[in-house]
């Protein structure tokens, strides 16, 4: 059961990561971005990019990230877990 649950989480996070990459693919090279990478370390990162992610999560998952959650999350995985926990 534990392994099955890990697979579900694993598939979901890959989908989550791909959705984030898709938002920026026209403008930036995010091919090597992984779930444990901090997208905010990119030298082009700004609050506008944060808004894009917040809007994406709202549209795709019907979850509103709080500004503090966006600020405090370091990696894509941490963002994913916040969304997953809010989804219940």
């Amino acid at each position, binding site marked *: 059961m534990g392994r099955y649950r890990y697979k579900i989480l694993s598939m979901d996070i890959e989908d989550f990561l791909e959705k984030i990459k898709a938002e920026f693919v026209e*403008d930036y090279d995010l091919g090597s971005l992984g779930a444990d990478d901090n997208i905010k370390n990119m030298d*082009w990162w*700004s*609050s506008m990019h944060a*808004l*894009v992610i917040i*809007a994406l999560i709202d549209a795709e998952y019907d979850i509103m990230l709080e500004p503090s959650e966006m600020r405090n999350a370091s990696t894509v995985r941490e963002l994913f877990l916040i969304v997953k926990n809010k989804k219940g």
Partner: protein
Amino acid sequence: MAFMNISGWKISGVAAAVPRNVEENSDYEHLSSIERKFLIKTTGIERRRVAPKNIVTSDLCEVAANALLDKLKWEREDVDLIIFVSQSPDYYLPATSIILQNKLKLSSNCLAFDIGLGCSGYVYGLSVIASMISAGHLKKALLLVGDVSSSTVSYTDKSTYPLFGDAGTATAIEYDEHATAHFNLKSDGAGHEAIIIRDGALRNMVTKDSFEVKQVSEGISRCALDLELDGLEVYDFSVKRVPVMIKELLDSIDRTAQNYDYFVMHQANKIMNETIRKKIGFSADQTPYSLKNYGNTSSASIPLTICSELNNSLKVGKNRMLLSGFGVGLSWGAVDLELNNCICLPIIEV
């Protein structure tokens, strides 16, 4: 919440004036070319009008007001009231509206005062004028709304400089016993630091430290006399609280998005505005934008959008409108009203 049903007034005409000078966001050298492209895509802002130093908000409003008075053929001595809504007045004192009363050659019987609001200012201003006109003693009024925000933003602040454009507008309002409008207005000062200029008024008077430019983060450097904008907080406020306020208004008057010809909202940025639009169920056809060519014009954005995008659509017949302004304060509101053969002048360049 401030629900107000106010009868006895109507909008007869709207005019907007902008500086002739255009700045293209594709030329904003503080950002790399890739970042500029991304900025334009996400904000929807390709260019803005930027006033030279010798043009201030009241100058733009004066031009708009003169054009509107001439078009409507209003006698100047018949204007009973002018209200100037802005966060960029001529002086600390006296009130800019009184200076405009003189410049527009209005009667000294004309009431004149300022309201210090930004992005919500047009809707708030309409509510104040409507309240005063509806009593029936005042017959004709001008609502002068605008900002020269470019004077308050730092070129080296990528979170503000490429967003804001300058404009001044005039709206003519007159007594009409058959007309009614419905308002919902709100405020929350707990969010006052989300959009703020810290120094320059009494809380933090100007000192030499006020001019010191500090780097806040990558690509954001400004001094205490420059506008600060917390994009995440403003987005969070706007997409959560504005749709709720609008739904409250629509529920109170038993209307839905389908009852409206147009929804004109404050032009903040494309991501935020589109999120709001979708949450309240308005179609893209119902929702005009002036963001692309004028940017975020603060309090002027609603009347500017009416003039730039709807000036042919509104001049004949009746149109049911939902207008909504939201932002600095935090302050937000909406009004449901009907425009009937409303004169909307094409944009005037100064």
